[in-house]
């Protein structure tokens, strides 16, 4: 792939966008925070006050440390700065401590660590293919990509209101992708290894990396027809990759293996005791499966095919996070979800093995792995949709078809994040951000009908329903409808992306 050259004075608009969004993030400092705020405060306290050997055993608070060790070290670093803001937040016993200085520190830490994301966005803008001929700055693909990444609506909601460090983590992911697009594969692998040890949810996309690096990096040349040339296998490259990955993992898990705590750490990292779906269903296949199950159960009772007493009580719509059984359809176990996920990503992995299409093919495979795991995974959070949305932005600014898929995915994906922020003062933010995003995407790609449907659903669920009599009897209904509606959108996007990967001949996109 050929890295492109950006226009001469491009840096100024990028800094303006970056400064603008950073200042915007400061407006959310006093807004609603979720329990994730307390989670991270607790982790600051644990890593600061306790010795390393106690980190993964500590359970004074219910929010135990469940990210890999590198993230714990990151929190440790933050806690050193936290001392000068308010040392009381670093006491493990101070549960739910939220003094103004604590809130200010934590919010500022998210805003400041986003600098990684801003740098990664800059690198991605550098990799974008510019169409020939000079155009108005507002229509250049790199500008559009910068807006879609820096001002990503979902990231703003999740990171700066709900409270998480996704910007920091996505910075690593996007930087790794950018490095691969620039043909610097070792750096990309290093960054991804780092990322895996920061948050293990990115295991979702590890198959894409594995297949791509093995096929396109370890085999240095292909035959004329694109098939694999076994003789060009480079052991040196494979060893280099292996060394990078193992050294990063050793750095991260080494101390815990030495202390013999590896099983405990792994049990904290992969808690399978939780149910198939979160309290609020992520918009994936299992949400549709649950709805089908419930519908069949209700129909069965109505048509006298089932006894109501036989059905298990308090189904999944009770809003609790525990293991439950399905009424009519067979229950789903973690093993089943794993098999389904692997089956869903197998065609994509096979496709880039048999017919590699360079770094952009890898990106498509990464997206399909992310979406496949989102669709079929066990206890998926709706926030995981961002793993698919952010990399898709890169493809969306280069290719009209991808732009269409991107629009569907972001509309439904972002909308599915709304239930995370349910307090009344946040309503103007949600509406304003959603309108801004719609106007922006409408100007570049026409998606009038989908948007109308979304606004219609939004007004019904947020305005009409709470005032209706069904609010008492079926309080879970708005969330259910949101899940189902978004699940259909995500499924559709998944299928279309698959089609574009499998049917694409070569790496020549149709430009916008």
């Amino acid at each position, binding site marked *: 792939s050929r890295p492109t050259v950006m226009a001469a004075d491009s840096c100024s608009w990028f800094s303006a966008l970056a400064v603008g969004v950073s200042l915007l993030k400061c407006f959310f*400092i*006093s807004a609603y925070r979720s329990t994730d705020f307390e989670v991270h405060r607790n982790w600051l306290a644990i890593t600061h006050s306790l010795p390393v050997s106690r980190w993964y055993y500590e359970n004074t608070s219910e929010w135990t440390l469940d990210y890999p060790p590198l993230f714990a070290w990151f929190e440790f670093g933050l806690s050193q700065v936290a001392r000068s803001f308010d040392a009381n937040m670093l006491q493990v016993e101070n549960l739910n401590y939220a003094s103004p200085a604590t809130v200010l520190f934590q919010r500022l830490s998210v805003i400041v660590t986003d600098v990684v994301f801003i740098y990664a966005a800059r690198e991605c803008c550098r990799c974008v293919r510019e169409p020939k001929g000079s155009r108005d700055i507002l229509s250049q693909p790199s500008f559009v990509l910068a807006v879609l990444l820096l001002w990503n609506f979902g990231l703003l909601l999740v990171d700066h209101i709900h409270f998480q460090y996704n910007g920091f983590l996505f910075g690593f992911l996007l930087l790794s992708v950018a490095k691969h697009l620039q043909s610097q594969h070792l750096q990309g692998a290093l960054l991804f290894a780092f990322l895996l040890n920061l948050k293990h949810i990115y295991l979702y996309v590890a198959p894409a990396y594995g297949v791509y690096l093995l096929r396109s990096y370890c085999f240095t040349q292909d035959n004329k027809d694109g098939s694999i040339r076994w003789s060009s296998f480079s052991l040196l490259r494979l060893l280099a990759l292996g060394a990078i990955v193992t050294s990063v993992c050793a750095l991260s898990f080494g101390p815990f293996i030495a202390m013999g705590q590896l099983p405990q750490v792994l049990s904290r990292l992969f808690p399978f005791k939780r149910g198939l779906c979160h309290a609020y269903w992520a918009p994936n296949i299992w949400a549709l499966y649950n709805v089908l199950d419930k519908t069949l159960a209700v129909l069965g009772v109505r048509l006298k095919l089932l006894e109501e007493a036989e059905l298990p009580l308090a189904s999944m719509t009770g809003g609790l996070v525990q293991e439950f059984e399905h009424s009519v359809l067979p229950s789903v176990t973690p093993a089943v979800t794993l098999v389904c996920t692997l089956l869903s990503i197998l065609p994509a992995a096979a496709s880039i093995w048999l017919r590699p299409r360079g770094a952009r093919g890898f990106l498509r495979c990464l997206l399909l792995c992310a979406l496949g795991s989102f669709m079929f995974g066990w206890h998926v959070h709706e926030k995981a949709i961002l793993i698919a949305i952010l990399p898709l932005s890169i493809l969306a600014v280069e290719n009209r078809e991808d732009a269409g898929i991107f629009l569907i995915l972001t509309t439904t994906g972002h909308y599915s994040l709304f239930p995370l922020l349910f307090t009344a003062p946040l309503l103007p933010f949600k509406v304003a951000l959603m309108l801004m995003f719609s106007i922006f995407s409408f100007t570049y790609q026409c998606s009038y009908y989908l948007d109308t449907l979304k606004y219609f659903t939004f007004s019904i669920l947020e305005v009409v329903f709470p005032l209706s009599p069904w609010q008492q009897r079926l309080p879970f209904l708005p969330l259910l409808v949101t899940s189902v509606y978004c699940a259909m959108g995500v499924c559709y996007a998944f299928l279309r992306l698959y089609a574009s990967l499998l049917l694409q001949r070569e790496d020549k996109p149709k430009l916008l």
Partner: protein
Amino acid sequence: MQTWSLVSICVLLSIIARWGVSLNSYSGAGKPPMFGDYEAQRHWQEVTYNLPIQEWYFNTTNNDLNYWGLDYPPLTAYHSWICAYLAKTINPEWVELHKSRGYESTQHKLFMRTTVLVADLLIYIPAVVLYCLYLTDGSSKKKVSVMFCFLLYPGLILIDYGHFQYNGVSLGFALWGILALGLGWDVLGSMAFSLALNYKQMELYHALPFFCYLLGKCIKTGLMGRGLFLLVRVGVTVLATFALCWLPFLAEPSQAMQVVRRIFPVARGLFEDKVANTWCSLNTLIKIRSILSGDSQLYLSLACTLLAVLPSCIRLLTKPTFWHFKLALVNSSLAFFLFSFQVHEKSILLAALPACLLLNDLPLMALWFLQASTFSMLPLFLKDGLLVPYIVTSLGFLFFSIYLLSALDHCSEDKLRLGAYNKLFCWVLKMDLAFIVRWKFYISIAAMVGLSIAAAVLIAPPHLPDLFPVLISTTAFLHFLGTFIHFNVVQFSEPPSRKSQKKSN
């Protein structure tokens, strides 16, 4: 991208900024017994809803004027009545007579903040959008940039959405008046301005320029022909608007007199608190309040105000163009602010609005003044717990105005519009004017930043408890005085020629 989409995105961004500020504290939060402006507005809702109109401005058993008595003209009272009506339908506890004193809750705060946002959306923001799209020169991108910076002006956002007031309504009406006059609809403009006057009496700061502009226009079109007709129409409109607003109070002369007494309290002294005008700053050197008697203070301030205002207004009378009108608005409101009686620090907003109108023509001077005006209100923001929004909005405003309007590039003699007077400067200083101006700007911003940090972080020594408010108000006063002189000079130099306007696009 099309203009409408850029405009909508900018408006939505400014709404996010406003709502973000409104999540913070308000004036008098949790501070009994008097609380602050937020409680005053809530109390007015209580009074106007529960009491008959005849009792609104009088001291009765049900209406204690010492506890935030109504001291704005009737339109504010009607607005409070409308808000109270809505409040009653949502939660009657919010406006219950006597019992709701000092009522504070998160729902109530949400309600009050929403009323401010709705008023802004209906009145202020459309006026800004229309002004920038129709009455500014330049490409559509330039117009949208000006609009964005106009909407981001921190002072108004922090006062309306932080401290809690409804300045957006009165300034919005005034802006509609200016917009109408700019488009040549004089009658509508005078009606809009009369509405603004009837909302807040401080709009009198803008009254002289409106009067002189319209009178000058009448004279120019011939006092014996169409001019006279225009004069009569404007006069009738103004009188009719006033009569309509004051209708319930015109039944008895005592009612009207009481309202006037409430909105113009002349019993108070030359100034209260630390405010960035001449008298307060002079007071640091000579204790003027103790030297002169109450009456002579009044006459002195009246004389100085008139002297300061007259040159600009007479110039406007002789040359009633829109350009001179805008300059006269700035000069008149600044003159009133600097020399008038009982000025509050929030009155600088009245000078800030016309300065925003000049963001397109004189970007550097306008944004410099606007930043200084926000800075002058810092003691108030610190008292209300609005330090973080102050920092964020000021940084945003400074960054975007300098970036989008290329303010620092427009420092040449031509752009500053000083005309023949810049030759005087250059002869005295023998240096490049743009260089001097830019460096003065940097030093001034550094001083403001330094003082802001000091006021927020350091504690004043015990023998000088008001050290930081005094330093801030004196610095701001020097900026305002400088701006006042500068804009007067600009008003007296030649207006921009067609050629130089084309160059600046």
